[in-house]
């Protein structure tokens, strides 16, 4: 685990620069240098008066089991929201006024966020979970071209991170 600074909360120029044993906090980019940060050290995290630093976790637990029927219902809702997003985008494309197009784009964005939330609660919570790995595996088998290439790369990444 290494430290990461939220630059929106950071008030600059204070104790993390003094306490870090390796100088990882003192960089010109405003971000902490991940390569010199000592795994799990967290001195700067506790010292920062603005609560601007946290540790980035590298190993995530497998999400708890889900009811299969509930998972299916959430996937079905994800698909409906995705259809609504596409309908809204199509409305925006043919809208006769700027206002109608803007409203449709707002509805499309909203539907996308709802679809994503359904996907999350259907078990596709993080890249490093079994549901995601299974899905990428199926896509790598079923699809070809660019989609297969991405699915294969991502399978590699999500497998490694466990």
């Amino acid at each position, binding site marked *: 685990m290494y430290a990461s600074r939220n630059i929106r909360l950071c008030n600059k120029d204070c104790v993390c620069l003094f306490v870090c044993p390796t100088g990882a906090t003192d960089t010109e980019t405003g971000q902490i240098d991940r390569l010199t940060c000592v795994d799990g050290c967290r001195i700067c995290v506790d010292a920062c008066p603005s609560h601007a630093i946290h540790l*980035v*976790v590298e190993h*995530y637990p497998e999400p708890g089991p*889900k*009811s299969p029927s*509930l998972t299916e*219902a*959430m*996937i079905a809702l*994800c*698909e*409906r*929201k*995705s*259809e*609504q*997003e*596409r*309908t*809204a*985008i*199509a*409305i925006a*494309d043919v809208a006769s*006024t700027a*206002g*109608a197009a*803007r*409203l*449709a*784009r*707002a*509805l499309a*964005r*909203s*539907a*996308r*966020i709802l*679809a*994503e*939330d*359904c*996907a*999350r*609660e259907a078990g*596709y*919570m*993080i*890249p490093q979970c079994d549901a*995601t790995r*299974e*899905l990428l595996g*199926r*896509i790598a088998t079923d699809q070809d071209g660019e*989609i297969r290439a*991405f*699915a294969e790369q*991502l399978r590699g*990444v999500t497998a490694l*991170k466990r």
Partner: protein
Amino acid sequence: MPDTTGLSAVFSNLSKAADKQQLFDTAERFSKLSTLFPGAGPGEPTIESLRAEVARDVERDYPALQAAGTEASDRGVLRAVKWGEKVTTAQRALIDRYTAKGDQLLDEKKLFVCEACGFIFLGDEPPEICPVCKAPSARFSTVK
């Protein structure tokens, strides 16, 4: 597993999850993969047909999911259902207001979307906290 209709959202959600873990390359790849699944085309691209879909979720799907989530004691699903039901009800209300007043409703007003829950807000500035999910105003994006 979702059919191709929902895959774009599955992958854009995973892109966000990777981004929050600061796995920026992985986030980028999921994001790209997301754009490769445009899914099936919509039926009729009219605001009336969209309103009917949204209303069906409010009246039928959310109550059913609320019951199923309670039965399975799945707090995550119940949270998503609670937010989703409110956001979708607000979508329907906004469509109805637009249908009644037309472009006049939007004149000189901005549309904001809460990136955490999807709540749409019409006004001059985003609300200080999202009335649905309590995210701060910085989580609202402005619809161009």
